[in-house]
């Protein structure tokens, strides 16, 4: 009896110790996670606070200090500047990002279907070619492409930033959608083929509806990618009223060096739309990543 009691107390204290360790670990975990949150959000705090300061406060107060009076006029100054029309930039960003997203969705799903479901001579080598274009840095083609745009008369238009999306839509997206299509059982489309359906019918009526989540993922990634693109617009767009938000912010910055309160207000304006879009569509982000196992 005594022996049993002894082990019971020992067991109890061991359990208590384990519990205590677990609690400490738990707290440690929380501290680390919160530190991570602070590190990712602190720069945003800095930006918002500074965007509401006066130039004097930017120069004399610490970065974390709140402004004495909120200077909403900084935002007004930015939005009413005739030489950097932010509303125009916003419009241009929306047009470029949405048109190219539509192009990517249409063409990459088509090509992915071709690679996933059809057999034709040269398919495997063409697929290797597709994969190898993934490692091609975009700047390498950007220089000769500029010559092409020059001959097509496309410099300083939205065409170079949107039309290519309709022709393939990017190796990465094709690859992603092909992987997804490979996961859809073949029985149904084979049955449909036997019933005399054509491949385009199968593609439109059966595959497209079933690709919904994958398309949403590709679409959001693509929209954000094009929205954030800086190099392309920098090279192709010249006229001030044709610039995108990203490029416009840099142009504004070049004209207003060291007016940090205004630059930060501009940064806030540029960031807001995309953060909202992300929050609205993040479900598809995560789903898409889990689904494909890759970015």
């Amino acid at each position, binding site marked *: 009896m005594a022996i049993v009691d002894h082990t019971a107390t020992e067991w109890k204290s061991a359990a208590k110790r384990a519990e205590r360790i677990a609690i400490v670990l738990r707290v440690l975990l*929380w501290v680390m996670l919160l530190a*991570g949150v602070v590190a*990712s*959000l*602190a*720069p945003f705090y*800095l930006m918002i606070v500074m965007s509401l300061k006066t130039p004097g406060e*930017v*120069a004399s107060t610490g*970065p974390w200090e709140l402004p004495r009076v909120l200077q909403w006029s900084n935002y007004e100054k930015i939005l009413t500047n005739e*030489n950097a029309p932010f509303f125009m930039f916003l419009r241009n960003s929306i047009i470029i990002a949405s048109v190219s997203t539509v192009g990517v969705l249409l*063409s990459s799903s088509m*090509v992915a279907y*071709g690679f996933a479901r*059809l057999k*034709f*001579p*040269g398919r495997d*080598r*063409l697929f290797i*070619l597709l994969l190898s274009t993934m*490692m091609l*840095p975009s*700047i*390498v*083609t950007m*220089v*000769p*492409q*500029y*010559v*092409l745009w020059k001959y097509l*008369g496309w410099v300083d238009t939205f065409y170079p930033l949107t039309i290519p999306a309709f*022709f*393939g*839509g990017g190796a990465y997206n094709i690859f992603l959608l092909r992987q997804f299509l490979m996961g859809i059982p073949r029985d149904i489309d084979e049955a449909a083929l036997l019933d005399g359906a054509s491949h*385009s019918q199968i593609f439109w009526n059966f595959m497209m509806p079933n690709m919904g989540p994958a398309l949403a993922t590709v679409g959001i990634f693509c929209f954000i990618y094009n929205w*954030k693109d*800086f*190099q392309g617009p920098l090279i192709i767009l*010249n*006229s*001030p009223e044709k610039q995108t*938000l990203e490029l416009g912010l*840099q*142009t504004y910055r*070049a*004209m*207003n060096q060291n007016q*940090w309160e205004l630059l930060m207000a501009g*940064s806030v304006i*540029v960031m807001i739309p*995309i*953060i909202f879009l992300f929050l609205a569509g993040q479900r598809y982000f*995560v789903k898409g*990543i*889990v689904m494909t*196992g*890759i*970015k």
Partner: protein
Amino acid sequence: MKKLLLRTLLCILAAFVAALGMAQEDVTIRLSVWDGDKALETIRKIAHLFEQDNPHVKVKIENYDYTLYHQKMIITYAAGVAPDVVMMDGSHYQFLATRGALLPLNKFFEKSPGFDINEYYKPIVDSYTFHDQLYILPRDIAPIGLIYYNKKMFKNAGLPYPDGSWTWDFKIRPELKEKDFLWVCQQFTKQDKDGKYVQWGYAPGWPQMQADTYALQLGAPNYDNYAEPTKVLIDQPNHIKAFQFAADFANKLHLGPSNQESAGSLMLTTQQMFVQQKIAMYQNGIWEVPNMRKMLKPGSPEWFDWDVCLAPAYVGADGKPVRRYTTGGSGYAIMSSTKHPDLAWQLTKYFSGPVGMGEMAKAGIAQPAIRKLALTEGLWLPGKNTPLEEQYPHNRIATDQAVPYVVFDPTTQFGISVGDRINKGLEVLWNGQTTADKLLRENQTLAQNRLNDLRKQENLSPFNWTYAGLVALGIVAGILFWIYRPEFGRKLTQLERHDAKSGYKFLMPWLIGTAVFTLGPMILALLMSFADWDIIAPAKWRGVENFREIGVVDPSFWKSLSITAIYTVFSVGFGIVGSMALALLLNQKVRGVSLYRTLYYIPSITSAVAGSLIWMRVFNPDKGLLNLVLYGPNGKWPIGAALSQWIMGDVHKPVDWLQTESTAMPALILMSLWGVGGGTVIFLAGLQGIPQHYYEAATLDGAGIWARFKAVTLPLLTPTIFFSTITGLIGAFQAFTQAFVISNGTGAPNDATRFYVLHIFSAAFQSARMGYACALGWVLFVIVMVITLVQVKLGNRWVYYEAEAK
């Protein structure tokens, strides 16, 4: 009655037709400028006046950032979308004029009655004339020989106001010390109780201005001959002396704020420092007047009495003062691609004529290039009726007094890329981290080599596009052969043929896209990498010279390749470890995983431009977040002091992360880790894909946390690690935006942030060297391809695929 009605109708109809005709005549003339916000107001006003005088013409103003302005003009001209009239200065017009991009203006003004080119200041007309043709009609002459001075500070220091008769020789002359510029500057230098400098005598508008002015006055030009340069002369003793003096002026003598003190800690331009009364004197051209007036409104708390005077002369060994000033000044030129040359000339004449100059003068932006106007009271010189605010600066006659001393250095058509090398790494000199002797000697060699190369290239033979086309065809045939090699000798059944048909139908967009937008340009890039092509003049055959230049001559290639490699290794390495660690933490069944995931992810989707701007503030030496953490709120924490000692060599200098050569790249790597959350999401997905029963089995076998991680988690995560490494490396090699924004496209300090892609960008779109940029691009492609293939090969050894294990 009927007749009348008919006549009225006819009249109305005629008027309607006429109106229609006139409406069709409406022409838009595009005018590009680099003026800032304030000057643009005036430019728009002049354009509006012009539109009133010419009802059928619309003027569209396009403003560009000066640092990219000339390059934009070159490439938009090449692309056929150049503006009609362009603001232009001496630095690039010869490049454009020799390539036929600018219209000579003589034929226009010879047939314009009442126009007399002799009314314009002669020095600027001469400098805008090339092979006896005028290419730019000057709108202003802007000697950079003015000192803006703070009368209040002079009064408080008990000093007489300067009259411009001072000199900057090194001798302190007791009897004439008020005329000794250096002595005067000394009177304003002040330190606080910690020994920190808080007030100074003088600062130039930008660091090089001071050095250039001294070099001119010491008689030390950049080239032996500005029209036909053969020798670069920046290693001459006087040139070195002038540049070293300009650097020491701030860093050693503390007569002016150092870069570190102004741009670094205070993050102020020297102009803002003048306005905030931190410096007593500020040198620049007259064009800063509108800004000054705006910031120093009479009656406002910021206001103090100020004026301008001539910048000092230099007294040489013979005791005679030498007075020379560099100069700005600009005008308008007409692009030869314009469809309306006569209207473009009307606009040019208007903007560079009495009306345009008058408005600019009234706004205080520009001293008229027509001397008569520059001497008119109430227009340029303040008159009796001039409103109080526009009275400043009173001594505007100084601009006319400065004109005889201006020295134009029109950049020859070689100047663009030779100039890049002449000025390479100067910011390191201004920061006091090198000597003028060392830097300028290095740059001398680089610039001379480049000049020799350019002179040699004048004799290159034209690029043979027929041969190039044949080679391209050969390459295409080779690719097709490789693709269809396995199919040779195979016969397709009817069903297979049908399938193949639909297959190619589905692939069509990609096939066209790849051919036109990827493979075609790649082949073109390969061909162009053997050419010398500025995209305007016909291409020339350069053979393997581009590649030789990359390996042996280009001073920035190895630097930019190595910093890009360092960036890639560390940002990808730390990034993967960091995002995996975060994912492991998040995988511990914490509540609110999705909230954390979102918060961690947000930085990686935000705008790269805005992100870079924010991080510039984080890295600010004085008011930045990073130094706050390292130095503590009182600025005295030991870790910060140790870092200062180690990096800056001075305990009292806070580390200026982005402006110091050795820390700029580590700072960018740190910044890249902000986006670690992007990878976390992927790793989290990978972790959640690991079946729970593996862990249970391992636990039953008695495995602890670490053993489980080693035996289960890590092997099953290898595919994710592999994928992240490959995409990460490809992405990191293409880093561009952050360096472009932070260094404003220059890769400063001394190429420490010159990512490889930025190097290509600047070769193509800043120096207009398309052939060379293509060669650089192919080198990058080969590097990335080799690295990726090696990784894939190695990956087979360490990546664990479940399918294989089964």
